[in-house]
């Protein structure tokens, strides 16, 4: 009889679903429809393979992360499981470089002490100390970059960003979590068009996703719209223009919302310009990262413009007010 391991305890499944197996033993696992549809009971297989039926209806990025529906999962082999967004592993990493991207944003390059599995566009948690941490998106690409790269924006009074800007230096050892999040490139449909839309350091995941897709020989269009309030907020412009110039299917559109158009950038929000350029998004895959209001508005607008709800991936960056808040989205 297969067993389920959860939070250090091991249970016989007795023919029950993972959800029933855990809830009847007193564990709190969220659930609603118990019919494999609402996705409230999403969990993650840390070890072992889940039956295919338990992943019906999940997006390719969710399947790639070994997520599954606990109410539909009747294990055929031993399975170690975790709640979908539980941070379970911590790893040490050495700061290999800190690079100035603009006045407000630094690239932090990290070298993990052991192999670190991730997809460009996912995020990790960086710990200042045991109780203070923030989430940052990965702008690096596993197959292209030796080190992990994060983009850190300085927030006034920010405990972690302030520490990074003032104290962190190359050679320091820091603690990071494993990688999380569903906002990453998946191979398999190389001709699909891709829209990448971000504000501020929401460019980090998009920069990783774009390079990952191009490196995977993606043939469809890859259009990246990056928005900031003023010109000084734009960054990585040279690198992105270089990619634009060398890849016919890639387009880079830096957008500035406050101020007139000038050489090299557009006066518009990235959402408005993207929809003006591409009013019909039927069949497109969409990635949205950055300011939560922009992300929520863009989710609805790109959906109404024809993108399928299952092909819109979003990472709203929440500015965390309290140090230990259980916020798993990056900022």
């Amino acid at each position, binding site marked *: 009889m297969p067993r389920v391991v959860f939070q250090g305890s091991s249970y016989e499944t007795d023919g029950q679903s993972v959800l029933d197996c855990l809830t009847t033993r007193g564990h709190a696992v969220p659930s609603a429809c118990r*019919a494999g549809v609402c996705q409230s009971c999403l969990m993650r297989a840390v070890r072992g393979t889940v039956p295919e039926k338990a992943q019906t209806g999940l997006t390719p990025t969710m399947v790639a992360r070994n997520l599954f529906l606990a109410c539909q999962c009747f294990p055929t082999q031993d399975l170690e499981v975790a709640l979908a967004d539980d941070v379970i592993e911590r790893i040490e990493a050495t700061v290999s470089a800190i690079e100035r991207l603009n006045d407000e944003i630094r690239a932090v390059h990290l070298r993990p002490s052991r192999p670190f599995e991730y997809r460009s566009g996912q995020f990790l948690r960086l710990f200042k100390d045991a109780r203070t941490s923030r989430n940052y998106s990965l702008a690096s690409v596993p197959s292209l970059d030796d080190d992990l790269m994060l983009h850190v924006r300085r927030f006034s009074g920010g405990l972690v960003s302030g520490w990074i800007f003032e104290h962190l230096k190359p050679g320091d050892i820091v603690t990071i979590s494993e990688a999380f999040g569903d906002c990453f490139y998946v191979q398999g449909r190389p001709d699909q068009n891709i829209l990448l839309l971000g504000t501020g350091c929401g460019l980090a995941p998009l920069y990783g996703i774009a390079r990952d897709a191009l490196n995977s020989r993606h043939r469809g269009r890859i259009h990246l719209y990056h928005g900031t309030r003023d010109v000084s907020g734009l960054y990585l412009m040279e690198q992105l223009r270089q990619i634009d110039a060398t890849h016919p299917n890639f387009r880079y559109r830096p957008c500035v919302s406050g101020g007139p158009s000038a050489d090299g950038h557009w006066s518009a929000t990235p959402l408005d310009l993207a929809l003006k350029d591409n009013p019909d998004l039927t069949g497109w895959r969409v990635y949205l990262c950055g300011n939560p209001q922009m992300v929520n508005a863009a989710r609805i607008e790109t959906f*109404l413009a024809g993108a*399928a709800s299952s092909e819109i991936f979003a990472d709203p960056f929440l500015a965390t007010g309290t140090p230990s808040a259980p916020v798993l989205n990056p900022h």
Partner: protein
Amino acid sequence: MGLYEEIGGAGAVDAAVDIFYRKVLKDQRVSRFFAGVDMGKQAAKQKAFLTMAFGGPNNYTGLDMRKAHAHLVKQGLNDSHFDAVVEDLGATLKELKVPDNLIAQVAAVAETTRNDVLGK
């Protein structure tokens, strides 16, 4: 054969969910109730609702329905809004060329949730 099999099961839900959700978001009678919701979570909920309305597998109780909609009832959700959503659902199925007798059955299933959704 039950309604769910006749209408096309999970495949029919997949085909209908985006068409239905776009109609509801564009429907000025009810769109305000969806303002500010997390669309990622909402799409899965729409799917759960359609599965139930199509007579498919579900374990929702009247109490779940009441809890899930209580905050909308406070914002003024009433019979006219319920009717609008059922109408959008019918229009979705018509667009997918579902026969009228099946659309009527779906509407009848949706109808059984009215009192719970509206907290009556």
